[in-house]
């Protein structure tokens, strides 16, 4: 019990004193996950609109397939990305394994299904009359899509935040393709894993608290936007 108490006190100290190592790890985590989420968003919004606004055979199946990948194990994505980017793999020549870049790519693969799936359901939740109104006012397909997206913006934002939450909190992928290199690819979750295995709980607890705080701040912000 004592250990936890002391760990907690030390953790608070780490945070309040803006410990350089803690700040660096947190900064890297945020940078990598924000990047992957933004890029995934850029890819997913057009694609989910395409899927939503078109009728084609197998559409339902495609959507269930996307939903299946919501809960794809992070280690499975890690293994896939590792074999892809390992020097013996098809993309080995890119020299990207064990870099932050490949972590971004891995996180994108991980969260794209979530963003796609949730954006599609966000779009389906929009009142059909919006489409009819837009069309009757002479809007093109693209303009209609924009109108619907605007209407669904809060739900889309929630989807993006879900994706970000999954990206920043996963550890399996980050360790496998990032390699947990200190000062280069070590992020909050991999640092927690390593420090705990070293028996240094203070740093782990501090980072754990920060991770929870990040989630809290983001969700509060989302809440505010949604209730405006």
């Amino acid at each position, binding site marked *: 019990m004592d250990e936890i108490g002391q760990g907690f006190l030390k953790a608070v100290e780490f945070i309040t004193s803006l410990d350089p190592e803690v700040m*660096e790890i947190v*900064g*890297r985590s945020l*940078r*990598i996950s*924000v*990047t*992957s989420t*933004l*890029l995934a968003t850029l890819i997913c919004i057009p694609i989910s609109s395409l899927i939503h606004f078109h009728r084609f055979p197998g559409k339902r199946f495609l959507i269930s397939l996307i939903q299946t990948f919501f809960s794809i194990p992070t280690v499975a994505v890690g293994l896939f990305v590792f074999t892809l980017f*390992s*020097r*013996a793999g*098809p*993309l*080995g020549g*890119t*020299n*990207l*394994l*064990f*870099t*932050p*870049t490949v972590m*971004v*790519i891995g996180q*994108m693969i991980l969260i794209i299904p979530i963003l796609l799936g949730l954006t599609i359901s966000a779009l389906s939740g929009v009142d059909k009359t919006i489409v009819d109104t837009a069309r009757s006012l002479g809007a093109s397909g693209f303009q209609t899509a924009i109108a619907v997206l605007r209407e669904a913006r809060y739900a889309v934002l929630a989807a993006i935040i879900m994706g970000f939450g999954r990206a920043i909190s996963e550890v399996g992928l980050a360790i496998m393709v990032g*390699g*947990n*290199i*200190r*000062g*280069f690819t070590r992020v909050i979750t991999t640092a927690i894993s*390593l420090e705990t*295995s*070293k*028996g240094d709980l203070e740093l782990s607890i501090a980072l754990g608290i920060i991770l929870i705080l990040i989630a809290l701040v983001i969700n509060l912000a989302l809440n505010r936007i949604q209730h405006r």
Partner: protein
Amino acid sequence: MKNKVFRSLAIVIALTSLITGMAGCKTSTAAPLPLQERLRVATTTSLYDTGLWGYLKPMFEEKYGAKLDVMYAGTGIALEYGRRGDVNIITIHSKSREDQFVAEGYGVERVPFAYNYFLIVGPESDPAGIKGMIPEDAFKKLMEIGSFISRGDDSGTHSKEKAIWEKADFDYRTVQKAGEWYIETGRGMGPTLLMASEKQAYTLSDIGTFLSYKGKIELTTIVDKGDILLNVYSAIAINPERHPKANIEMASNLIDFLTSPEIQKLIGGYGVEEYGRQLFIPCAGAEPK
């Protein structure tokens, strides 16, 4: 065709993320340097858990103006990274597998740079009564009455453990199935020691990691004598003939660095003040007797 699509996609993604990634970063440590200036070493967990790499890394970086990426991996994983060409150099401790690695053409040369000894550690009360035995006899006794935590991760320590079981006339597969008393953690030396301490069981550990964890665990040295316990650390640069981007020049620099008289002296003195005992005995380039 498919490959091409993949590749161009990956490049686009990579570029975008590099740009966005760098845009928000001010600290110099986080900025990805051009890759040729990074040297990647996969190291056995004991050289990391003892803090030796953390101690040597800045010295090497300053001397050669390169970035050293130290990756925490057991010998088995380190060898696999090496085989795939994902690292430039490995520092590990399992002689027979190192020789094989070099013979197969993956590594340039095996260069021993330090050694120490393995220990069988366990609870103070020594419930199996193996204190003072030679390792082989101790293992025989553990087979009858004992509880043992194994690395189980194909690491150098795990290889050594298997070698002791075999020298004690057990087939390792029967040991693995011998019962609930035999636990494989599949993790590094540090976590395995922590688990052995939690469960008050025996385990095989290198002396360095054991000493650096001493304040955190309730285990004591039970067996520390026996030729089989010798533990030699070597560095092997990845063969550039197999992997053209192996950055052999910087890897050779690292080997020169590790075997230089100045660094050998620092390795020999590392941890003495903190643990009251030598963790590593330097042996620049030569096999210890």
